[in-house]
């Protein structure tokens, strides 16, 4: 089979994301199970409400972070598979021409689920390193256990689910005429709707290219917006957490926020630059400056990044507000939560700096692309 194990394992972005997801979920779910164990022993109603509140909060955290990350991993998996099929369409086309059925080829795509397995396994194992501290902060009265059932829920099941999903999705993607695959045609562009073509005719070529680049890859639009969403929401949340509950939460959030944001941002930018290497080389040969090129290829994503940031800000505000309201039912001394303008400004400035630095780094990469590179291919 042409798809090798290493093709599946090198989807590092998926591994990192599933690692984060399982890391967080395992902390809270393990805690939840242990709390449920001792629930029967509690007689004091005040303590009881406190425990219930903790339970609710862990569930919310799990559902929100787990859900978001699951969705992201699924989109990333689809993105990788589509990318793989596009860049190997010749080989796949030959297999189909030889008489291999879609499902037979698609079966090989199960390896793409392996990255989820490694990521989840890693996240699961490493969360135990933090577990003692986590219990101490959450509630030192709850004794810690190793709940093996969670390995099934958080490692085995996700891995199996993703392997299956990879097979189903690739089977669907392989349903293309053999000639379509064999001919070196980027079928994704052909046959696209051309309704709007007439309208935006009179803008400059750079503007046209900018739009076509962004619209050509919706998954990357999502990733860039997601990257800034993660950064914005997690960083701001962690500042509020630092005041509201504990330093440990703050650190977990910062680390996860940065990892997620960087992974998705780099995945998106590297893909954009690689996919457009040829166009950039031609433009430079024709005499477009590298600033024009990087503006056309990367510039279109700036607005999306800032939109992601804005949504992240609103999201974290609403989330913390609802969490605080859960807690204020249990004790009166929790202050009312107000929008934290100071941390918003700090996070926004750091975001702008990081985003522009990364873009500049990749503009420099664009500057180095030469026509010779693509001629030798």
């Amino acid at each position, binding site marked *: 089979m042409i798809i090798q194990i290493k093709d599946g394992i090198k989807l590092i972005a998926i591994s990192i994301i599933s690692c984060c997801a399982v890391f967080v979920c395992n902390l809270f779910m393990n805690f939840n199970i242990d709390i449920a164990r001792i629930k029967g022993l509690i007689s004091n109603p005040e303590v009881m409400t406190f425990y219930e509140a903790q339970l609710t909060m862990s569930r919310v955290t799990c559902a929100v972070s787990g859900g978001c990350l699951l969705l992201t991993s699924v989109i990333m998996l689809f993105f990788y598979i589509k990318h793989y099929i596009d860049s190997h369409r010749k080989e796949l086309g030959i297999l189909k021409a030889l008489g291999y059925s879609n499902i037979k080829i698609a079966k090989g795509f199960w390896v793409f689920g392996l990255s989820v397995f490694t990521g989840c396994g890693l996240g699961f194992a490493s969360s135990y390193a933090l577990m003692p501290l986590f219990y101490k902060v959450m509630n030192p009265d709850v004794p810690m256990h190793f709940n093996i059932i969670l390995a099934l829920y958080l490692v085995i099941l996700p891995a199996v689910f993703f392997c299956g999903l990879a097979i189903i999705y690739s089977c669907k993607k392989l349903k293309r005429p053999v000639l379509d695959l064999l001919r070196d*045609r*980027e*079928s994704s*562009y*052909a*046959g*696209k709707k*051309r309704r709007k*073509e007439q309208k935006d*005719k009179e803008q*400059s*070529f*750079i503007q*046209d*290219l900018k739009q*076509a*680049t962004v619209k*050509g890859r919706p998954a990357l639009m999502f990733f860039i917006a997601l990257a800034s969403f993660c950064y914005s929401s997690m960083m701001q949340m962690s500042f509020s957490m630092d005041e509201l509950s504990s330093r440990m939460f703050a650190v977990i959030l910062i680390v996860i926020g940065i990892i997620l944001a960087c992974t998705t941002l780099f995945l998106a930018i590297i893909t954009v630059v690689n996919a457009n290497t*040829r*166009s950039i*080389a*031609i*433009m*430079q*040969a*024709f*005499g*477009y*400056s*590298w600033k024009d090129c990087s503006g056309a290829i990367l510039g279109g994503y700036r607005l999306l990044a800032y939109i992601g940031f804005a949504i992240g800000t609103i999201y974290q505000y609403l989330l913390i507000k609802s969490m605080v309201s859960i807690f204020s039912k249990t004790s009166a001394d929790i202050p009312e939560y107000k929008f934290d303008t100071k941390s918003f400004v700090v996070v926004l400035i750091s975001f702008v700096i990081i985003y522009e630095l990364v873009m500049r780094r990749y503009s420099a990469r664009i500057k180095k692309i*030469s*026509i*010779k590179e*693509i*001629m030798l291919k």
Partner: protein
Amino acid sequence: MMIELMDITKSYGSEENLYPVLRGISFNIQDGDFVVLLGPSGSGKSTLLNVISGLERPDSGRILYDNTDITAMSDEELTFFRKEYVGFIFQQYYLLPNLTVDKNVKMGADLAGNRNYRQIIEAVGLVDKMDKYPSELSGGEQQRVAIARALAKKPRILFLDEPTGALDEETGRLVLDYLCRLREEYRFTMLMVTHNNNIAEMAGTVIRMNSGRIVDRYNNSTIKSAYEIGW
């Protein structure tokens, strides 16, 4: 524009394993001439073309365009020079896959501030394909888009690396015929690399290369059209 090459050399490879591709090349190209560069595979034709057009730098030697030495230019200046004067047509077309024919041609037109570029699309006979993507075109049509794109930027010198290499006889003749007619209309210099000896009969000047050296150079007394040469 008159182009003067003075003792151009270029090598590839590492220090201890240097492989010379161009070994001292000198010649002149007159303004408005049609020059054909012939030679066996690996003789350095494409490399020479890239060096003259400012895509690559030679190891030594000078390249003068009306007495301006482009080898002394910085990368930014060289990019600006290509923008102002040079057009390219490559063997593999290299169209931008995610843009329509119209926008691909506009890529060249915008560089020269050319607003009437649709005339050129018309001239190469692609008006009805204006809103198609490159993947929906035949090889010959794609090559014609590449020609329109290069001409839309109103180059003073047009460089062509085996423009008919991927075409069959019929479309090859068609494309060559377009080029010659457009050259008369827009008055630019043309330097074409080709494997096809017959095409040399269409050129004003023929240069033959072998192993990085020029082995022959002559002017044609009679110039044939694309439909008079053999194939």
